């Protein structure tokens, strides 16, 4: 163990001293550090923040970096960064590239009539649901019954026709038989 002589130069003097506090300062809250960076803290409130910044070399550099960044115009962020961040909230980001066509416009919210009324959109959805339900009924039970009726009518007509045809045939036979042919 050596004890170095107190140097004469200011810088050497400082570096020969143990400037780290015996007890590490408490971590600084982000809000406190932001307030300190803006110079909004009183001398009393700023002291613990300054002690913490002084004790942490990374925080010392960060404070200067942030002050520098906040004081000058910044370049635009990459488009990918913006797109990814936007997608974190809501689901509209998934529709960023909307489907074209009239139906796509209608799905996106009433663009069909040039407005974006939510009530109009809901009304149209209800009409669409009604059309689908009616169509399902017709294609299912309704049309099946109709077809059955048609089929039944066809058979009864065929039966009548064949009966009529048979009667006519008998009468002609009887006519020829009656004449002795």
């Amino acid at each position, binding site marked *: 163990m050596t004890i170095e002589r107190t140097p004469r130069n200011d810088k050497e003097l400082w*570096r020969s001293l143990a400037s780290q506090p015996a007890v590490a300062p408490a971590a600084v809250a982000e809000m406190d550090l932001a307030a300190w960076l803006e110079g909004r803290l009183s001398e009393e409130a700023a002291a613990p923040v300054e002690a913490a910044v002084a004790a942490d070399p990374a925080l010392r550099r960060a404070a200067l970096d*942030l002050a520098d960044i906040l004081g000058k115009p*910044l370049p635009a*962020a990459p488009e990918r*960064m913006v797109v990814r961040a*936007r997608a974190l909230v809501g689901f509209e980001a998934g529709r960023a590239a909307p489907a074209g066509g009239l139906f796509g416009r209608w799905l996106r919210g009433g663009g069909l009539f040039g407005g974006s009324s939510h009530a109009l959109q809901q009304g149209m959805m209800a009409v669409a649901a009604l059309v689908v339900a009616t169509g399902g009924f017709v294609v299912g039970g309704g049309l099946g019954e109709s077809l059955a009726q048609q089929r039944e009518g066809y058979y009864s007509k065929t039966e009548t026709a064949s009966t009529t045809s048979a009667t006519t045939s008998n009468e002609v036979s009887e006519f020829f038989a009656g004449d002795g042919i």
Partner: protein
Amino acid sequence: MAELNQIDLRALARGDKRTWDAFVVAAAPLINAVVRRTLASYRLSEEDVLDAAQDVFVRLCAQDFRLLKTYDPERAGLPTWLSVVSRSCAIDHLRRRRQATEPIDDVPEAALGVEDRHVEKLKIPDGLLTARQVLILKYLYDEERDVTDIAKLLAVDAQTIRSTHHKALQRLRAHFREDEPPRGG
């Protein structure tokens, strides 16, 4: 930055999609700059930088915007607070990445070694210097920063920094009875 200050924070904290999109556009340049500056010395890939920036946005909106709701406009501007949060997130991202990818065997021994030389330093008594004096001396001598940079950070003029520095050294010299250097030969 001006756009960032015009964001409706209540709508943002409610999770309003349009407000969030506007916030992202306004905040992205700042978050991008802070994350890049924080990670600059670690030579990370562009993908890592984008991931770290995404972590900032995730942290802001996570758990129903819990972090965002802690922001107090009375205490600091949104850009300043956001820059502090971005830096914290970038450091967290770096720590997670290093823990996940750097086995202890890959770390050079020199980085893990402890210097054998021990020099006993004189301790500065508590209360001898103010926190600001210590901070200024550290910036000047440990970080070797320019007086104007420190003045800008602390929002004072350069002369105030010089004066604070001078008073701090006077107190140190008085306490440790530092002799004046011998003049001449």
